[in-house]
């Protein structure tokens, strides 16, 4: 069953740890894998090198009102260059230039759709055009590269 959400609507949602019922932060952004296919982690607090993230594997459920994290201990500091670039907004699916494999620019990503059950991206909306994730090739600091249609 599809459980599609968008980055825009998920923004600012509370993140709560199941083990102690404490709020560990809010959804500040998403770290998307280099292949552009899935959410690796959620940025929940702090900035830059002091940003805290929770890996998608620790997400118990991504609900309409709150994101439930399996434990308060699953939150950790960003520890890779890729993740640091992501929390700084230097690699970001939203706002990325969409470039196809033929070298033509399609537009700029306005919003990103994902399956809240699996964390897999299902598509992006760029200049009003929906691009399905089966065309995704990579997300880097320069562009979101997709297969030419």
């Amino acid at each position, binding site marked *: 069953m599809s459980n599609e959400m968008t980055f825009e609507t998920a923004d600012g949602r509370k993140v709560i740890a199941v083990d102690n019922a404490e709020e560990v932060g809010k959804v500040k952004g998403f770290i998307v894998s280099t292949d552009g296919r899935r959410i690796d982690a959620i940025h929940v607090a702090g900035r830059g090198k002091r940003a805290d993230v929770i890996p998608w594997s620790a997400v118990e459920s991504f609900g309409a009102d709150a994101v439930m994290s399996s434990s308060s201990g699953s939150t950790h500091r960003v520890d890779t260059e890729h993740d640091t670039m992501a929390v700084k907004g230097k690699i970001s699916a939203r706002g990325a230039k969409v*470039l196809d494999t033929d*070298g*033509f620019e399609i537009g700029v990503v306005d919003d990103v759709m994902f399956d809240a059950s699996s964390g897999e991206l299902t598509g992006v909306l760029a200049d009003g055009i929906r691009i399905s994730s089966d065309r995704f*090739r990579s997300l*880097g*600091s*320069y*562009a979101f590269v997709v297969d030419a249609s």
Partner: protein
Amino acid sequence: MTPGRESVLRATSLVGLPVVSIATGEDIAEIRDVIYDAGSHALVGFTLNKRGFLAGRLKDTLGTDQVAAIGNDAVMVSTDAAVSEAADAAEVLERPKDSAQVIGNRVVSTGGDELGEVVGVILTTGQQPSAVGYEVARVGGEGSVFVPISAQMSLSNENLILPAESTEFIRDDLAGFGAAVTEFRNRTIGSDGRTADRSDTNPTSGLAADVDQDEYQTGADR
């Protein structure tokens, strides 16, 4: 490749285009210059600059065989390693000055008419980029014309001889030249991929006699 995405443009208009890796979405370099082998009339590859405001020259080059596609907005390569893996083209890549050999040559028809002087190389973009023509500044400074590259062209240090079969495909605008190149290829390359017999061609006279000066500059390069 969708038809119509391949275009014909001046080699120099690729300068500054980013080189983007399909595997990572990173802009790993930008085009500095085109490396051209005048002897074989072939696009060999590109020299590169670093990206960014303090852009300096990169030692790595990009061989044509490593290019996934050239589009309006970027030169695409499959992986970041493409810019250093130019083994096949290495010999010519190390001598990029060769690219200058054809520029400045006089273009003379087999009938002995001097058309003008080579000022640039014309490429097709897309997934199989290649050199398809020369831009020739006409004698007397009356703009330029575009002549197709052909296997029968002969080149010396000073002259480029235009074979008779090419003359009917000379155009004075890039957009028109694109269509002419397609027709020229269909004419000279048979369905078996071999060059057609020269007697098949029907050379006509008049080196772009009906030139329209207003059309020049409205190139298809952007």
